[in-house]
């Protein structure tokens, strides 16, 4: 189980491969891998966006991510997980977040990865400041709801 706050770009698919190759517990036991990758769009709320800066709270951010993963482990049977989140300056199409979950069965993998992602969106202390095509900068006020019923 790993959580990482990443300065600079990263390739989520290479990170998954490398993590999976190094995880001794996975070979032969994994029946399901669920992966979520969030990437930066070049538009938001009707505005063209040319970049953004992601601020975080060093120490608290990692602590909250670890708590979220621990909550998921208590609710579902997981073999392993990897959570990575970018900070600093980001460009459109760059990966922002990776949540990968390994389990014996798909139900645990799907549900746990969704839970981790939604909890991250609402509780992990990251803040986005967008740079618009117009030259203006603006803080994103809040995240959209992930579940339709929210």
């Amino acid at each position, binding site marked *: 189980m790993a959580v990482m706050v990443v300065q600079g770009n990263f390739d989520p698919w290479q990170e998954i491969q490398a993590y999976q190759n190094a995880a001794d517990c996975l070979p032969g036991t994994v029946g399901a891998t669920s992966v979520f990758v*969030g990437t930066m769009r070049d538009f938001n709320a009707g505005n063209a966006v040319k970049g953004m800066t*992601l*601020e*975080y*709270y060093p*120490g*608290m951010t990692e*602590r*909250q991510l670890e708590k979220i993963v621990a909550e998921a482990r208590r609710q579902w049977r997981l073999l392993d997980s990897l959570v990575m*989140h970018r900070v600093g300056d980001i460009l459109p199409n760059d990966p*922002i*977040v990776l949540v990968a979950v390994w389990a014996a069965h798909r139900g645990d993998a799907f549900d746990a990865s969704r839970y981790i*992602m939604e909890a*991250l*969106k*609402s*509780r*992990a*202390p*990251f*803040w*986005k*400041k967008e740079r618009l095509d117009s030259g203006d900068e603006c*803080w*994103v*006020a*809040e*995240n959209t709801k992930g579940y339709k019923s929210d």
Partner: protein
Amino acid sequence: MRHLSFNYPYFRNGVHVMSNKASIKVRYFASLKENLGRSEDHLVYTGLMTVREIWCSANPGQPLPCNILAAVNMDYVDLDSLIEAGDEVAFFPPVTGG
């Protein structure tokens, strides 16, 4: 709103000279940090206080933003939670990661 029992002394922008045990570190992030024009304050600990009172002491006359979130020692807390000497209190807007 101003909290009369705890207006002063406080020291801004890291210029305090107290030991950590006698002080409260207050941190601000993102748009709140920009609006206030500083990233942290250091307050003298004078007894049990709530997180809300910490805000009032550090920001006299400045209303607490309605959607603000607070943490003590890097865990989320209610604004009425009590803080202790040496605690790190943080205020920040809704989170927007992911």
